[in-house]
């Protein structure tokens, strides 16, 4: 009995080591980004926001999101934001190929620069409003650009994507959720 216990004790470093390995492997395998905040607004109504106009573009408010015909995206972007340029082509693709209504919030930007980007790269947005001082985005819990929210037809936030939407995110995350919402009929 005593010998068996000793036998066990000699394995404790190994056991502790394995526990540590599991602990670190979890983080490696799940690929959770610790800098990504958990979303608190999921399944909540999209908060009220007041945006200013970009000349020549239709502006929107949270009222447009309630009682919509289908799901929509709200994308927060800026002309000074480099990852936003990366995701731009996927926003264009979703707007043109998948007929998804995308609302844009232009975050703390120079309006002239924003207009230039839309002119040069194309406009994926159905309507667009500017949040010049960033206060409307704080109301949304935004902490960096780009961020994208998926809104269902009742105006509830269903998903929040932090960072640029890449091809993988579009195919595997955004579009499936959109399709799921489309199939929900009341």
């Amino acid at each position, binding site marked *: 009995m*005593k010998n068996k216990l000793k036998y066990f004790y000699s394995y404790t470093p190994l056991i502790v080591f394995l526990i540590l390995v599991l602990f670190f492997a979890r983080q490696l395998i799940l690929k959770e980004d610790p*800098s990504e*905040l*958990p*979303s*608190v*607004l999921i399944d909540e109504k999209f*908060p009220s926001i007041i945006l200013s106009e970009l000349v020549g573009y239709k502006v929107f408010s949270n009222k447009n999101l309630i009682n919509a015909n289908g799901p929509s995206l709200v994308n927060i972007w800026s002309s000074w934001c480099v990852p936003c340029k990366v995701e731009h082509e996927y926003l264009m693709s979703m707007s043109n190929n998948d007929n998804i209504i995308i609302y844009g919030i232009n975050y*703390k930007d120079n309006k002239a620069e924003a207009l230039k980007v839309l002119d040069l790269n194309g406009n994926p947005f159905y309507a667009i409003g500017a949040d010049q*001082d*960033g*206060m409307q985005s*704080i*109301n*949304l*819990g935004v*902490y*960096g650009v780009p961020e994208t929210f998926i809104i269902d037809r009742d105006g509830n936030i269903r998903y929040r994507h932090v960072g640029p939407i890449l091809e993988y995110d579009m195919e595997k995350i955004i579009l499936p959720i959109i399709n799921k919402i489309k199939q929900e009929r009341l």
Partner: protein
Amino acid sequence: MTTIIKFIFCFFIISNSVLADNNKAAYELYKELRCLVCQNQSLLESDAPLALDLKKVVMDKIELGQSKNEIKKFLVDRYGEFILLKPKYSIQNILLWLGPILFLFIGFFVTFVFLRKQSMYKEEPLPLTNEEENSLKKILDNNVS
């Protein structure tokens, strides 16, 4: 004339003390809130653009007369409890707060058991078996000859 000067003077003092109170409350809140961009800094320490905006939100709300708890709730509702540098004392966080004490007691317990075992088994070397006695003798004899 003097009454007007007095009045202005009083007004100045009162408004100044209100300002000082507001600043103090804001300062305390800045220290308790996390900058979401540079995550282990408080708002007070951070000059990130978002931190500056959040400080403005806090200050505006204080000037509107909102309490510290109201302001914290506003931010937690939007950014999650993560924005509080000091986690709440809630059931969900019970392990977080009591964990260290728990581990301390586990440590005490293990040490106690270990020390008791050690004092209980003072190991006496086992007497040699006949076989071992013989082989020992053989070796010794060999060495002598």
